[in-house]
């Protein structure tokens, strides 16, 4: 193995893959078998973090950054004048195994530019995964990209070796896609996603009857949308997200604040700030949908198309629906506790457990780790002290902003001044 050549390829093809933000390595159930290498049964592990604070769990690379498409938002687009490289199948296998043996990674995330055509590319991706599984007896995590337009047969095979498959929708709306990636159409993205969804359902059903049915993409599917490249508002983004969760049983939708990489006039120019705060608010909304029992329409709808930047979406919802509060910590059900600003699901769980033993008061809640600076306006507990003033939502918002330190304070300081 020529380390110099590999190093050069790795630099190019890791750099090109980094805009794909997914790095999850959890949710699979592939155990080590026959004293082989690797195990993907546990929770995900971040082996290190990049200097921008993102988890590094997988060796995330492109097989090649040669691409026949010219999507404006993509750094490997055909018209971009950059260094190109391609790994051989065996090189990727060797890198993965050697990194894994040193406990650098949980497994491989393999994506690719599209060379020749969709099937040719997908076939190469599948052959890497197949080699790892069959020749190396590798049981670590494998995440493969579904190449838009790949045949059903290849997608079926991919799922037999990969733990997770993903196809990035990238642009949330049809119109945006048409403008920025004219060679692609939405159906090409949907097709492999649909195939994988159906295979997962079928394999699961068969497994119930025949134990020896092989695993098929046990960690499910995910997708990614770019934020702030094509002018969509939060309502459109989260509606699309909700559609994919519901329609294709996705495990995750990722939101990736657009990092300007070109001078194309259709896009934010180089030097434009990455919309990280907005990205954060979208993830919070995503969490509210998946773990907190919210319907997307409660947070974003025709009347509220933009998430507040200065406060989190749950607080925003509570202030718009103040008639549901105050909530009695010692009586309320799980669903309602989860809706109280300042209570995370961990706190909710602890409250539900702890209140079996005694009525909880402020001191108890504080020790449990409840963010009382936010929660106190929305709850009562076993104490005769509580917020008695009939505060208007705007006043509560002002008080909370005054008494909290947001990591995004600088980004929203103009709003803060209104109340300061």
């Amino acid at each position, binding site marked *: 193995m020529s380390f110099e050549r590999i190093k050069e390829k*790795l630099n190019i093809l890791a750099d090109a893959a980094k805009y794909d933000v997914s790095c999850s390595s959890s949710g699979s159930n592939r155990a080590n078998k026959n004293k082989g290498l690797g195990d993907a049964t546990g929770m995900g592990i971040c082996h290190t*973090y*990049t*200097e921008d604070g993102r*988890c590094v769990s997988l060796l995330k690379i492109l097989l090649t950054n040669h691409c026949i498409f010219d999507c404006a938002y993509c750094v490997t687009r055909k018209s971009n004048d950059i260094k190109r490289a391609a790994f051989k199948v065996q090189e990727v296998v060797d890198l993965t195994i050697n990194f894994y*043996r*040193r*406990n650098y990674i949980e497994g491989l995330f393999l994506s690719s530019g599209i060379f020749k055509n969709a099937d040719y590319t997908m076939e190469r991706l599948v052959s890497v995964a197949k080699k790892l599984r069959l020749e190396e007896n590798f049981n670590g995590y494998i995440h493969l990209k579904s190449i838009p337009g790949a045949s059903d047969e290849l997608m079926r095979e991919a799922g037999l070796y990969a733990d997770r498959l993903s196809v990035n929708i990238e642009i949330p709306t049809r119109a945006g896609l048409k403008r920025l990636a004219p060679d692609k159409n939405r159906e090409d993205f949907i097709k492999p996603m649909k195939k994988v969804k159906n295979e997962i359902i079928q394999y699961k059903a068969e497994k119930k009857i025949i134990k020896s049915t092989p695993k098929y993409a046990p960690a499910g599917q995910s997708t990614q949308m770019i934020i702030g490249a094509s002018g969509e508002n939060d309502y459109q983004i989260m509606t699309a997200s909700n559609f994919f969760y519901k329609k294709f049983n996705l495990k995750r939708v990722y939101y990736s604040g657009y*990092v300007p990489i070109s001078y194309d006039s259709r896009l934010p120019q180089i030097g434009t700030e990455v919309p990280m705060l907005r990205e954060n608010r979208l993830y919070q909304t995503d969490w509210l949908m998946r773990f907190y029992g919210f319907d997307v329409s409660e947070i974003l709808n025709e009347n509220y198309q933009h998430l507040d930047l200065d406060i989190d979406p749950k607080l925003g919802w509570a202030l718009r629906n103040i008639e549901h509060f105050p909530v009695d910590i010692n009586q309320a059900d799980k669903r309602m506790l989860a809706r109280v600003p300042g209570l995370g699901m961990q706190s909710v769980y602890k409250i539900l457990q*702890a209140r079996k033993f005694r009525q909880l008061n402020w001191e108890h809640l504080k020790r449990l780790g409840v963010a009382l600076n936010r929660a106190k306006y929305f709850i009562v507990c076993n104490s005769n002290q509580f917020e008695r003033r009939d505060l208007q939502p705007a006043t509560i918002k002002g008080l909370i902003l005054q008494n909290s330190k947001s990591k995004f304070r600088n980004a929203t300081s103009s709003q803060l001044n209104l109340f300061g």
Partner: protein
Amino acid sequence: MQQVLTYDGSFEGFLSVVFKIYEEKLVHVDIQKVAHVQPSFFGAVAEVLTSKEHADRVWKGLKKKLTTYGRNQIYYSFLSEELAVENILLDYIQQVFASKENIEKDFSNLTVLKLAKITKSVGREKHRMEAFVRFRLTKDNLYFASIEPDFNVLPLISKHFKSRYADQKWMIYDIKRKYGLYYNLHTVEIVAMEFPKSFDFTKTSDDFFANAELEFQELWQNYFKSTNIESRKNMLLHVRHVPKRYWKYLSEKQP
């Protein structure tokens, strides 16, 4: 008057002390490791010998009162090696035995909450070690890693590495506590090791390590750099996830 009871520092030793306290109905005790016993001006100091039988009886008793979750909390907290953690554990165990109900999730009880916090720290350290162990291939075909965890987590990570690296010999050595785990392709053993004077844990000298070892480290460092997005740089967040005290043994952080 307070009585100091010492034990050998093992978990079984600690449980043996608990047994003695119940058997002899002792009150006002202070449990200390025999190796770091603080001389006391007032009370007497008595050494309790470790008894597997006594330890088993206490553990069995706890099994009736607690789920795996609660018993894990006791073991995890014990491994924290925090000063006087034995006394917190004794307080907890006494409350467990005194209560009709299982109290392990009474998060409004101060002792329960304290234990939950210590357990969380130890659990975090365990998870960090599963993440931050960096094996380096030696000339003898052994994948070797050295660590200096805040808590004594080697016993907790053994299973994880065994089921993952079933086909390679490996060793994880705790420099602070001077012992290691060694997997010989069949079982994991606890080993004490003597290292040559010239051996520097933070260096990958080719006297000890395989020829290609540094090349792979360099590839990994390169990968680590390439995968970073400069315009999103956030060192505060980075250091929160990868605290500086761990950098010494992380291949990607080597100069």
